[in-house]
């Protein structure tokens, strides 16, 4: 049921528009994946920017980009939404199955999974990072099972993680999450050296497995360098600390409160690994908002285990009696149904709905498009219709880079969401122009920028409007294009 509700909600409600319009990265991944499908090769040098054109490129998520692009090429934006929704729904379904396997009641497990969904929903975008959430569930479940198993014969629980790590390393750059989990479980088992050594050995095998990718160990070096570069991390919203003024963080806050309430009410005797998991991932989530969904996944089984014990040992008040009755009914229904057939049927029907124009022609039933109020859709149409209106290289808004790569592949961008590729030097140069700091003209000249495409209210537009060597080529409510006058 959880899988169906999440999948259908994401694919058929307005959420599908949020998934592709929150930033330009879904466009970016489609464009890069499309290039790889077209050229039947993994991308190794940059093709899409004029500032770093031809430079060696380490794509941290080449396989995801191919998958997203394959879906998008067939189903348009509905494809990206479908892949994203499938990943989210499957992650939550796996989390739910995990809780049931540990003896949690279905009603209670549903509540906790919905809480985890609420905490992580702010990052439900149609991008490769969703794969990390899926792999986090798989890794965390196996490690938790190993942690709780008797020492002998439990190795088989961890062995599948090794090939999975190869897959993860090719799908998304945050495969390091797996190493953090392995490290936490190794540290938590120091009192049981054999277990700790087993985890370390599996960890080493996972490191080796992660080297099986098109970039070998350069991938790891690239990621470490990125994480150690404060300028790059600061530049990206999702690397900032959570903003608790925003309603999007209410789910995370609620989950934190549920955890604290557990400590007050149940006073559980937690295992060392659970303490470390809460401490490490709690800190990482407070430091970087993109870790909040991972924290939500990690902490849910701990909440389930101890709250379930509280519920079972609670007295028999009227409320508890009512809850138990309801829970028994839900459990009976849950056990008497097998949703697997339903899942396949719904997926086929959904595919049919999304692919209707391709299968039966006519208008699409579900239209999923980039919103012209968020991205410079009309401006790119203007450029396509008036190619002579601009000349030279482009200076573009950071958040629009991915969209411009996709919408105007014949023009190379100045910068896009891949700030790990561009490096701190170029990002600083971009920032100089973007903030109209001293030296902005030198940067534009250095990169032979002949035109700019920026949000209408961007301060650089105000500056260029005063310059005799620049003129307004196009403007609407969203974007303005300024062009350098030829001498």
């Amino acid at each position, binding site marked *: 049921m959880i899988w169906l509700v999440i999948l259908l909600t994401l694919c058929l409600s307005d959420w599908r528009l949020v998934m592709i319009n929150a930033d330009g990265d879904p466009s970016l991944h489609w464009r890069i994946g499309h290039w790889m499908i077209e050229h039947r090769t993994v991308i190794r040098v940059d093709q899409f920017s004029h500032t770093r054109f031809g430079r060696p490129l380490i794509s941290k998520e080449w396989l995801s980009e191919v998958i997203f692009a394959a879906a998008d090429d067939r189903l348009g934006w509905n494809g990206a939404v479908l892949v994203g929704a499938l990943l989210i729904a499957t992650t939550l379904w796996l989390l739910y199955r995990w809780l049931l396997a540990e003896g949690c009641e279905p009603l209670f497990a549903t509540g906790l999974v919905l809480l985890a969904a609420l905490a992580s929903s702010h990052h439900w975008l149609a991008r490769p990072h969703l794969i990390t959430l899926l792999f986090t569930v798989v890794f965390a479940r196996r490690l938790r099972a190993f942690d709780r198993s008797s020492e002998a014969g439990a190795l088989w629980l961890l062995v599948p993680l090794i090939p999975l790590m190869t897959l993860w390393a090719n799908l998304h750059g945050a495969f390091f999450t797996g190493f953090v989990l392995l490290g936490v479980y190794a540290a938590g088992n120091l009192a049981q050296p054999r277990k700790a050594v087993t985890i370390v050995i599996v960890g080493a095998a996972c490191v080796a497995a992660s080297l099986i990718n098109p970039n070998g160990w350069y991938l790891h070096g690239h990621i470490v360098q990125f994480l150690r570069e*404060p300028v790059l*991390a*600061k530049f990206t919203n999702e690397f*900032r*600390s*959570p*903003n*608790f*003024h925003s309603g999007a963080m209410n789910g995370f*806050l609620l989950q934190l*409160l549920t955890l*604290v*309430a557990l*400590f*007050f009410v149940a*006073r*559980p*005797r*937690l295992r060392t690994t659970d*303490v470390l998991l*809460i*401490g490490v991932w*709690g*800190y990482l989530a*407070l*430091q970087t908002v993109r870790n909040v969904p991972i924290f939500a996944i990690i902490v849910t089984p701990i909440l389930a285990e101890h709250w379930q014990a509280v519920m079972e040992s609670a007295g028999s008040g009227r409320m508890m009696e009512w809850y138990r009755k309801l829970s028994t009914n839900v459990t009976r229904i849950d056990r008497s149904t097998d949703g697997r057939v339903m899942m396949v049927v719904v997926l086929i029907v959904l595919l049919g709905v999304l692919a209707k124009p391709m299968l039966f022609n006519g208008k699409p039933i579900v239209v999923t498009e980039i919103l012209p109020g968020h991205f410079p859709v009309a401006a790119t149409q203007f450029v396509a219709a008036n190619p002579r209106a601009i000349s030279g290289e482009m200076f573009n808004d950071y958040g629009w880079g991915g969209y411009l790569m996709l919408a105007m592949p014949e023009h190379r961008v100045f910068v896009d969401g891949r700030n790990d590729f561009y490096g701190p030097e170029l990002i600083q140069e971009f920032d100089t122009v973007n*903030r*109209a*700091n*001293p030296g*902005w003209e030198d940067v534009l000249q250095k990169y032979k920028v002949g035109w700019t495409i920026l949000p*209408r*209210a961007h*301060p650089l*537009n*105000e*500056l260029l409007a*005063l*310059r005799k060597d620049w003129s307004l080529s196009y403007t609407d409510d969203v974007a303005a294009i300024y062009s350098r006058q030829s001498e």
Partner: protein
Amino acid sequence: MMNPAVIEQPLPRRRWWLPSVSVVLWLVFFLAANLSIVRAMMIASDSDACWHWQQGNWMLQHHAILRTELFSHTREGAPLVDLWWLSEIVTALAGNLLGWGGIVLVASVVCATLVWLLHRQLLAEGNELLLSTLLTLLAAAVCATHWLPRPHLATQFLVLVFAWQLRWFERGRTTARQLLVLLPVLTALWANLHGAFVVAFVLIGLHWIGTAVNWARATADQRPVVRRRVTVLTALGVACFLASLVNPHGWNLPLQVLRYMRSPLLMGFAQEYLPPNFHDPSTMPFVILLVAVLLMLLIARPRLSVTDGLLLVVWLVLSLRMVRNGPLFAIVATPILAEYWNAYLRAAAPSRVLRRYRDISARLTSVDQMAGTRGLPALAVIAMIAVLAKPQLFGGPPLVATELPASRFPIDAVEFLRQSPEAVRGNMFNEYAWGGYFILAMPQRKVFLHPNLDVYGEDVVRDFLQVNGVQPGWEDILKKYHVDWTILPREHRLNHLLAQRADWHLVYTDQVATIYGRIP
């Protein structure tokens, strides 16, 4: 609760020259604030102290409470609810007598006394000296992130007193009469010192809820006692509310505070109202405090009272929402942490580390019991006043110079305007962070915006943001407010724009600030 082991041992002979650990803490924080680089950091972090000094000055000069806006042209003459009038008078008195050194001196006395008082509270509650000292230092490190010479220090101090007294009332160590006399009087003082006096009601409210829950769960013979506590806390809340109305603005004061808190634009404008940035190393003490709380809950597994649970949760949420609440969380959480860590450490089976800890703690306690000196803090304050007042008393250069750094404030630009008053005419558009400094340094020139956002409301702040962000329509706003000159950081984007304009010209520039004037 006293430690029985401590009571049974004969007290060692007191040494008149030896200060207690609490006094040492006081001295360390006081001297560090006054004699190290900390004093420059305290006044340089923003210009709020400047503006409070000037407002206090005006009140001292005019023997009246400030009731209308005087220092900005955008809201000149608008009604003003001064949330800090008493603190501002104290600031102005100290500043007028001893300059910036005097203002730092007052702030440092408050901060050092806060640390001393927290340490004394922990000891009075029967916690071991070493643990109390470590936790006090941790709380001080969290509070220190917001130790600026501004009225909010009064709130940090009074939160400590309120939390302490309410905690002791719950434990039967403070009588109802003491509570009902002391806290309303302090509320009246608080309401005149700083706008965050509403925190008093949060604390009373949480204790009221906790006690009410206890009442609902109490056995029949406990009920009368707990019910009386609920009644006392209810009466306390009412008395404190009435006491808070004893201020020059009456109940416009709480209304103004609520209006401000309900505006997301204003609340999001000032850095200290934003959530903590955990990438910033200055949040590390707060993280360590969170870890200490987490470990207490997971290792000591205390059976917390409802009130303690509420205090921890509510202040945790508030401190995650606003970085300025971090110190208040530290002040409220530290006694709870101390109580349960202390109990855990006493009951824990002796390991090598624990034996070492107990050994150090016992030795430190025996030294502390020999402490006989009492007047060192007073002596230190007098000595520091003499040091600061040296130019006035004996002439010559100051021994300790405390000045605003010319690298952060447009001091040379202001000097230029002083010497060339005709260089600019009309109204000013200024950098927000410098607003307070301009009010102090050139009060005759009215600013566009200064940090007292209460007086501006959302409209003026929005106008300011539009110009500051060089958004379309910025010129119309400058015309609307008759702005004829700007004073902004050298690299401000508006400067680059004005440099392109034929109707504006560069009046002055240095490494810090640039002034542009409109050509008549």
